[in-house]
Structures are given as C-alpha cells and as structure tokens.
C-alpha cells in the first residue's frame, strides 16, 4: 500500500510537470469574464451568473482532465513501455493501478479546490453581505470532485482493455448517459414489454448516476445542503469507485504487456 502512495505522488508530479495545472489560468480568465458580464446585468442575479458559470467551468475543465489524463494513466505507460521496469520491481499490479488513480484524484482535488476558492472569492467580491447558504458553493465543488473521481475510475477501467480512443469514447458516453439516469427510471414502463422494463430498470441502477452530484441550482439560490445528501453522495462515489477499480484490477492483473 505504501508503494501505491509512491506511485501516486509520482503521478501527481507528472501532472505538475506536464503543466496540467495551467488550466487554473484558463479558469481565472473565465471567472474574470463572468464578473464583467455579471456586472453589466441587473443587480441581484450577479451571484447566480457567477456561480452557474463558475461551477460549469470547474466541471468542464475537471472532466477534460479526468477523461484525457485518466485514459492515459495506464495506456500511456504501456505504449511508452515505462511500465516494464516498474512492474519488474516488488510492486503489485493493483498497487500500481491504485497509485495511478490516487495520483490523478489528488491532482484533481488540488485543482478543483483552487478553482473553488477562486470562485468563492469572486462571490465574496460581488456580494457585500455573507450568509451561511453561500457555503453551498463549496459543497458543490466537493461534489464535482466526487464525480470526477468516478470518471477517472471509469476511464481507467476502459483503458485497461481497449484502445485509448475507444476508452475516451466509452467514458464520455457513460458520462453523458449517466446524466440522464433519472429520466431512464421515469420512463413509461407500462408501455414496454416486461423484458424491456426489467432491462431498463437494471440499466438505470447499473449506470453511474452523475446528476446526483449536480447541485448547481441549490448553490445559485444559496440554499443549504442537507447533511444526508453529502453523506449519500460520498458513500455512493466511494462504493461505485471501489467496484469499478476492482474491475480494472481484475482485467489489468491478467493482462499481457506488449
């Protein structure tokens, strides 16, 4: 397990040296633009504009990192054969995989946290009086991070058995479908054949529900988040990540390197 930590720190170092954190500049630009736009619209919805734009930007930038770097975590090491020397050392394949996952999750955590703080400061700037509900925006950022960790796990799983390009397509596909899981559950079951009903039902529970992590509306209206939702989302992400990573480990542990 200690070795997984060593791998994780190196993965983080790679992200830093490959200038992944430069996206923070991009985010700063987005926030500045948002503030200017918000300033020109009528007073009162300034915060709403900033929160909506800010959270969307954090989510989108995070998703790009999670998918593209997540898919490359293992496949790049296999393609460039950097993995060979490492796996011949006393490190188990699951330790390597967990390390890779942990490293990117850590990178994303710092990244998203920095953007979250930026967003919060922008908010404090436009809003003279401060209430407790304004903290919701930080919880929204935390939920985005949970969602991103789940996306990384999925990207890792797919990259363990397909080409990087397909893995990117699959991960993106699952993410998009995962935004509509609720709609799938609400489908008019009575008009479908029994087999179809069962299939839809199973599918809706099997797919990750990404919409649960979206509390943009709550944040925009400074509503407080119930503690139960925080616990539920944390648990859901933890269990789902564990399952997906277990799958990835099973596949990767049997895999022949080129």
């Amino acid at each position, binding site marked *: 397990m200690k070795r997984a930590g*060593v*791998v994780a720190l190196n993965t983080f170092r790679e992200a830093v040296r490959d200038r992944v954190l430069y996206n923070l500049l991009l985010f700063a630009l987005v926030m500045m633009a948002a503030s200017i736009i918000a300033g020109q619209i009528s007073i009162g919805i300034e915060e709403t504009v900033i929160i909506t734009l800010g959270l969307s930007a954090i989510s989108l930038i995070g998703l790009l990192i999670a998918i593209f770097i997540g898919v490359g975590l293992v496949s790049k090491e296999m393609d460039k054969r950097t993995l060979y020397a490492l796996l*011949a050392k*006393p490190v188990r394949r699951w330790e390597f995989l967990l390390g890779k996952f942990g490293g990117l999750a850590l990178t994303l955590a710092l990244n998203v946290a920095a953007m979250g703080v930026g967003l919060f400061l922008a908010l404090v700037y436009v809003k003279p009086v401060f209430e407790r509900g304004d903290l919701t925006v930080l919880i929204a950022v935390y939920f985005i991070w949970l969602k991103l960790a789940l996306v990384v796990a999925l990207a890792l799983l797919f990259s363990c058995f397909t080409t990087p390009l397909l893995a990117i397509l699959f991960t993106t596909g699952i993410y998009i479908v995962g935004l509509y899981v609720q709609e799938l559950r609400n489908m008019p079951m009575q008009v479908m054949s029994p087999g179809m009903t069962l299939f839809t039902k199973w599918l809706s529970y099997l797919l990750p529900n990404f919409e649960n992590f979206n509390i943009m509306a709550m944040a925009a209206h400074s509503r407080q988040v119930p503690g139960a939702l925080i616990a539920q989302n944390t648990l859901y992400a933890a269990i789902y990540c564990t399952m997906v990573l277990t799958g990835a480990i099973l596949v990767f542990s049997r895999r022949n390197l080129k």
Partner: protein
Amino acid sequence: MSAPAIETENLSKEYPHGFLNLKKRTSLERLSMQVEEGEIFGFIGPNGAGKSTTIKLLMRLIFPTAGSARILGKPISDIEMHRDVGYLPEQPYFYDYLTAAELLDYFARIHDLSAAQRKERVQTTLKKVGLETAGKIQLRKYSKGMLQRVGMAQAILHDPQLVILDEPMSGLDPVGRREARDIILDLRREGKTVMFSTHILSDAEMLCDRVGVIVGGKLRGVGTPGQLVDVTTQGMEILFELAGPCTAPLLAKATRTGDRYRLQVPETGLYDAIEQLRAAGAKILAVARVRATLEEFFMNLVEADRAQAAAVEVSGK
C-alpha cells in the same frame, strides 16, 4: 546445494493471431533450462527467437500459456522474488519528465530503501554507469545510449542477487559496451548471477560461463562458449604476401585484398598448404583458426529450423 538462480519447466507462450484470434503462434515452446547461482549466462538467438518473450515471462510482464518457472527458489508469482532481482527491459524508456537521479530515487522508494540509503545508492549507481554529470538532466533530453545506461542503473540500483538484462549492449558506443561488460563482470565478482540476452556472439563469448541458444522459440543447446564455437570451427586461414608472379594451383582459391591474400584450408591440410605456398615464394604473415561468423552460425540453425518446418508440413499432408 542451493537452488538454481533461474529454473524453467516447459515454459511456453502462444500468441493468438489472425482472424478473430483463432490461430495461435508459438513464441516459446516448452523451455526447460537452469541458470546456476553465480554464473553469467548468455541467452543468444536471432531476431524473433523468443529471448525477450522468455525474459518477460520471468518478470511476469506476460503470462505463460503453460509451464512454470522459479527464481531464487521462489515461484515467479511470489512478489517477494522481485526484491532480489534487477531487470533491464529491451529498448528501455522511462518517465521523461524526471531526471535520472529522480527516476532512480523513485525506484529506490519502490524498493523501500531509507532516505540515506537512497541518496547513497543513487549517486554510486549513476557513477557506475557513467552518468554522474548527467544526473540532473531530464530524461527526455537523453540519447538512446544514455537511456540504456539509465536502464542498467535501475537494474542494479538495489544491489540484487540476480540481474536479468535484455540486450544490455544495444545502442551503446564502444566505451559504453566496455563499461557494460565491466559491470557484468563486477557483478559476478560480487557473487551475483547475471543472465543477459544478445545476438552479438562475441559479447557472449567474452563474458559468459554458459550460453543457451534459442531459435524459433526452441532451445537448441546449452553449453560453454568454447563448446559452441568448436562445433562451428571451419578450418584455418592463412594470410600471405607474394613477392613476384606465382602459378601455384592453390592460389586460385585465395581471395586478394590489396597486396595480401587469404586462403582457407581444412585443419588437416594446413601444413601441406603452407609448404606449397613457401615453395611458391610467398611470405606468410599469419595463420588463424576460422570461426563461423555469427551470421553463418545462425543461418545454419535457422536453415535447419526451416527445413524441419517444411518436413513437418509435408509429412502432415
């Protein structure tokens, strides 16, 4: 008696290929061999013979279709065996965003060395492979031969009992080759076991206590380099100069380069040929034993391999 450093039993690897992966291509066929503790073992064979396949199987980078192997007395599935083993991959490549010193430090952490040990080992190992001045340069700026040296460094970093090197000399300049040979010999002096693959017969001859020859995925023989070369001795070569014109019948068989002539004769006809040349007024410069070149050596085995494959095909019909 202690267990062999490496022991394989019927180790086999098939790769699926063709339409829907239905066909199988055998890369390694029932390899059974042993590398004794404390020896330098050379693994030689032409391109595609199965050298890297064997080594990757031993390192658990790929998994065998059948058979088993033990390293230092432990089955290769036991992760503990990796503590005492160093491995240099073929055409090594490493994280290019790290410097050589950082990379070695990272691997030393994986090996659980303490901070003090890491510092010391990284420095001495860099020095040993001739990279002490390049330790602070990012690996993306390294040349091929420098990367090969880094590969050697990470293989011996943790002072392993057994070192397995896949083509350690490839990409190295003459100085580098010499240094690599010295490292290998040093390892043996320290009582370590070394197994390395190569298709450069002279390297194997110079270094190895024993060699194994593999062609077409099958082990074709194991023995000392002397045994291997004796089998392929092709007689004697005489190098001579001529003062004036000469009409000796032997001359027709000689090849001329500049003023000099080379003549190959069977070992039994050596003295006879020398006398004839002297009678013809030739000045004899050197007499040497002819060894099959690597090319001939392999071509013979490969030809035999093909002939056998053809025979199997015919008898199969």
